[in-house]
C-alpha cells in the first residue's frame, strides 16, 4: 500500500502530538491548587489557539476571494472553517469538564467561555450557510461575508462580556502564573497542536480541490434558465 505524502505528514503530526502528550502527563508537574485536572488546560488552550489560527485562514481566504474571485482562496476558507469548528468543539468540551471539576458547574457565563461559544455558533453557521447556498460563487461570497463579520464579532463579544463582568463584580478565580516546566510544556503542546491543525487544513484543502475538480467533470453543461418574470403588482 503506497503511502501518499499527506499520510506521511499526518503521521509526523500525530507523532508530535504523542510527544506532547508524554510531556503533559509525565514531564509537567502536578498543580498544587487544582490537582491532576489542571493538565486539561494544555490541550484546551492549545486547541483554542489552533482554532483562532484556522479562523484567520477563513478570514483571509474570504477577503482574497472578494478581492479577486480566487476559488483557491475560497477552498482554503472552507478547509479552515471545518478544522476550526472541530478544534473549537475540543476547546469547549475540555473546558466544560475542567470547569465542572474546578468550579462545580459545566458552564459559566464569563468572557472567555461566552466568546468561545459564540465563536462555535458563528462558524457552525458558516458551514451550514455554505451547505445550503448554491455551490460556487454564491456560497463563496456568502461564506466570505459571514467569515468577516464573524471574525470581527468574537473580540467584540469578548470585550462586551468582560465589561459586563466589571459592572457586576464577583469572585475572581483565575491564577495565570506558570512555573517554568508548565510553561515549557504548554508552549510545546501549542506548537504541536498548531502543526497538527495545519496538516489537517492542508488535507482538507486537497479534498476540496479534488471535489471541485470532480464537480466540473460531472456537470459538463449547465443549462442557464431565464428567471421567471415576476407578476407586476
Amino acid at each position, binding site marked *: 500500500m503506497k503511502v501518499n505524502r499527506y499520510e506521511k505528514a499526518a503521521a509526523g503530526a*500525530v507523532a508530535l502530538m504523542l510527544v506532547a502528550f508524554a510531556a503533559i502527563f509525565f514531564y509537567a508537574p502536578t498543580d498544587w491548587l487544582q490537582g491532576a485536572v489542571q493538565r486539561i488546560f494544555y490541550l484546551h488552550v492549545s486547541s483554542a489557539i489552533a482554532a483562532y489560527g484556522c479562523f484567520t485562514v477563513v478570514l483571509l481566504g474570504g477577503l482574497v476571494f472578494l478581492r479577486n474571485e480566487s476559488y483557491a482562496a475560497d477552498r482554503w476558507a472552507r478547509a479552515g472553517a471545518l478544522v476550526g469548528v472541530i478544534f473549537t468543539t475540543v476547546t469547549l468540551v475540555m473546558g466544560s469538564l475542567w470547569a465542572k471539576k474546578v468550579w462545580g458547574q459545566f458552564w459559566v457565563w464569563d468572557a472567555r467561555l461566552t466568546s468561545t461559544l459564540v465563536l462555535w455558533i458563528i462558524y457552525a453557521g458558516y458551514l451550514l450557510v455554505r451547505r445550503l447556498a448554491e455551490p460556487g460563487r454564491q456560497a463563496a461570497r456568502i461564506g466570505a461575508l459571514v467569515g468577516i463579520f464573524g471574525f470581527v464579532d468574537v473580540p467584540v463579544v469578548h470585550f462586551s462580556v468582560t465589561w459586563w463582568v466589571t459592572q457586576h463584580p464577583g469572585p475572581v478565580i483565575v491564577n495565570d502564573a506558570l512555573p517554568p516546566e508548565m510553561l515549557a510544556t504548554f508552549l510545546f503542546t501549542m506548537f504541536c497542536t498548531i502543526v497538527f491543525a495545519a496538516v489537517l487544513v492542508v488535507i482538507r484543502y486537497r479534498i476540496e480541490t479534488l*471535489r471541485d475538480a*470532480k464537480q466540473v467533470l460531472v456537470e459538463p453543461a449547465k443549462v442557464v434558465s431565464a428567471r421567471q418574470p415576476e407578476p407586476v403588482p
Partner: protein
Amino acid sequence: MSYLVIAYAFAVALLGGFLIWSLRTLRDLDRR
C-alpha cells in the same frame, strides 16, 4: 482525575477520528 481522562479521550477520539476520516476521503477521491 476521571474528568482529565474523559477530556483527553474525547479530544483524541474527535481529532484522531477526524484525521482518519479525512485521509480516507482523500484516498477515495484520489482513486476515482
